[in-house]
């Protein structure tokens, strides 16, 4: 069997089957479960990396399920009838983000989750969520996008609400589930509209056929609404702070990656599916939603007293930066001025930076909660005396997220500021304002929780949790000190996939 050719489907199948086998191993013995998880997670990460290497060195990878050989996408009539996975540089980039986040999350969960509080369940759902995210990133047809969207929805809401002995988790999970399901149904209705008009589900084939008729516009509005609901952009963000606040920390960073995958799906729809009939008005809509998101979420963060919810609003506001960056690119995609590409690069680079920095913050909040027993800023104080490493990690993550120069958040935010300034100076002013607000919020939270006299007794944080946070902290530093390298080798090809890569994507599937 040719492993390289089959890697895209294996990267989805291995965690999917591995997740369902996990509880069976746990029934036999706990150590078997641990070994199995290491095996599955390692294999999935390796397969994702293999796909990424192929994509970055060779070009767009296509895999056709049930065909005689993987690249045989078309029937003799020239019509893509089978389920096709299409992995371009952006999909591979998203795959790498999910792999990083999942590995760090599992390492953290090893000692973070208590054995009698549904650890097996949380690990199973986490693996399932990872499989769904990889599926969304790699799929090449719209209906499977919906299917994997629902896989991530169910797994994510399970992770938010599985602690049924507390009342807040299930409440947050119900709210999240309602938003996710309605969003998913909007996407399904859009798929049905497009199928009714063109009789196809393959993304590349639809992209070639699309004419921009009224039905197409209605479908675009439904896709935009559904995917933004899943991504947690203002005004559809109500679920996000609840879910981030109530899910266990290792699940929260997977939920953050999940919102980014939904954004990826949105960008795929906007640039690849509707790239041929691009309308600057849609770009301006995305820009407006992005600006609204980053401002409103930063303002909401100011009034939070719960450390988890405070960081959660910080996470929502980062979604706004990604939307702003890519939205600026979308307004410019027809005329192709240079700043459009920089904006898209900034938005995509910010996905990686956000996953690393906000992940670090959420893990630090989880460590604080485990060590001291609560998260309310009114009760916390002086944790810096006992939790030295965690204090450092929280500060690092907070400064990176607020965009302080030597750290990674600054590198991508600068690209977004510069390019949105060329579109409209007001946009970059608002974006900088939101960053300053976030800095104020995080300084307040840091001072309240970690500095001052010792108010709360804190137990030491277990070493695996510190190691997981340390990996992300190293990421924050490395991405901040060497942004050029990352942008040139990882981000630029991913941005090109949106900017000019549409024809390559279509050719890879349709062959002409």
């Amino acid at each position, binding site marked *: 069997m040719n492993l390289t050719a089959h890697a895209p489907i294996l990267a989805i199948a291995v965690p999917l089957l591995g997740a369902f086998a996990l509880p069976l191993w746990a029934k036999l013995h706990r150590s078997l479960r641990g070994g199995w998880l290491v095996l599955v997670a390692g294999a999935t990460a390796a397969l994702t990396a293999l796909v990424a290497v192929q994509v970055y060195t060779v070009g767009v990878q296509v895999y056709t399920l049930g065909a005689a050989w993987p690249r045989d996408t078309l029937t003799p009539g020239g019509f893509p009838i089978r389920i096709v996975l299409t992995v371009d540089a952006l999909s591979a980039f998203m795959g790498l983000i999910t792999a990083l986040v999942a590995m760090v999350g599992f390492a953290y969960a090893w000692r973070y989750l208590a054995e009698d509080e549904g650890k097996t369940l949380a690990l199973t759902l986490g693996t399932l969520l990872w499989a769904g995210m990889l599926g969304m990133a790699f799929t090449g047809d719209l*209906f499977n996008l*919906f*299917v994997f969207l*629902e896989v991530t*929805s*169910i797994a994510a*809401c*399970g992770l938010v*609400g599985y602690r*049924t002995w507390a*009342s*807040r988790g*299930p*409440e*947050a*999970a*119900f*709210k999240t*589930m*309602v938003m996710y*399901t*309605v969003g*998913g*149904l909007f996407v*399904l*209705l859009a*798929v*049905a509209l497009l*199928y*009714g008009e063109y*009789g196809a*589900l393959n993304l590349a084939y639809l992209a070639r056929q699309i004419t921009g008729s009224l039905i197409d516009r209605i479908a675009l509005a439904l896709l935009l609404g559904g995917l933004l609901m899943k991504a947690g952009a203002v005004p559809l963000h109500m679920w996000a*702070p*609840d879910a981030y*606040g*109530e899910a266990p920390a290792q699940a929260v960073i997977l939920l953050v990656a999940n919102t980014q995958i939904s954004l990826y799906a949105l960008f795929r729809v906007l640039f690849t599916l509707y790239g041929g009939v691009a309308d600057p008005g849609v770009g301006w809509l995305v820009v407006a939603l992005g600006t609204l998101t980053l401002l409103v979420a930063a303002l*909401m963060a100011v*009034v*939070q007293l719960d450390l988890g*919810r405070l960081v959660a609003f910080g996470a929502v506001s980062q979604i706004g930066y990604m939307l702003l960056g890519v939205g600026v690119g979308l307004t410019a995609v027809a005329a192709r001025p240079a700043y459009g590409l920089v904006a898209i690069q900034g938005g995509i680079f910010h996905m990686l930076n956000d996953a690393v920095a906000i992940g670090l913050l959420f893990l630090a909040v989880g460590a604080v909660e485990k060590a001291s027993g609560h998260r309310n800023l009114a009760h916390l104080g002086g944790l810096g005396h006992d939790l030295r490493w965690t204090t450092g990690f929280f500060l690092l993550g907070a400064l990176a997220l607020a965009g302080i120069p030597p750290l990674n958040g600054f590198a991508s935010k600068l690209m977004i500021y510069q390019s949105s300034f060329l579109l409209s100076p007001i946009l970059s002013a608002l974006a900088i304002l939101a960053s300053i607000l976030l800095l104020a919020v995080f300084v307040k939270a840091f001072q309240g929780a970690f500095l001052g006299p010792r108010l709360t007794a804190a137990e030491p944080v277990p070493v695996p949790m510190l190691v997981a946070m340390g990996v992300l902290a190293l990421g924050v530093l490395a991405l901040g000190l060497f942004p050029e390298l990352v942008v040139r080798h990882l981000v630029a090809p991913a941005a090109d996939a949106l900017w000019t890569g549409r024809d390559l994507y279509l050719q890879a599937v349709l062959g002409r």
Partner: protein
Amino acid sequence: MIGNVPFVVCMVLVLLGLWALLFRRNLFKVVIGIKIIENGVNLYLVATGYVHKGVVPIYTYAPPDAAMVLPTPQALTLTSIVIGLATTALMLAFVVVIHRHKRTLDGRKVTELSG
């Protein structure tokens, strides 16, 4: 000929479901609203595949010159129904847990999380 009537009916169902979702406070009725939206979308999917005077798309059973309805939307709808079953079961489970903790199903009274 019934023309576009099935599509209009599906959209009416979707809007009815959205109305229930937005204006009903009972959590069970919220779930029912979502189910109504889902059924509207599923019916829409099946309706897109209908061919006038078409027969069941089983190749060996169909008369030689008959038009068959499109099989793909039916497969999609089946998948969507199964997914809908999973999401509904999960949502109802959460409703039961919420009721066990709060002893009420009024969406305004169960809220602990806000702001």
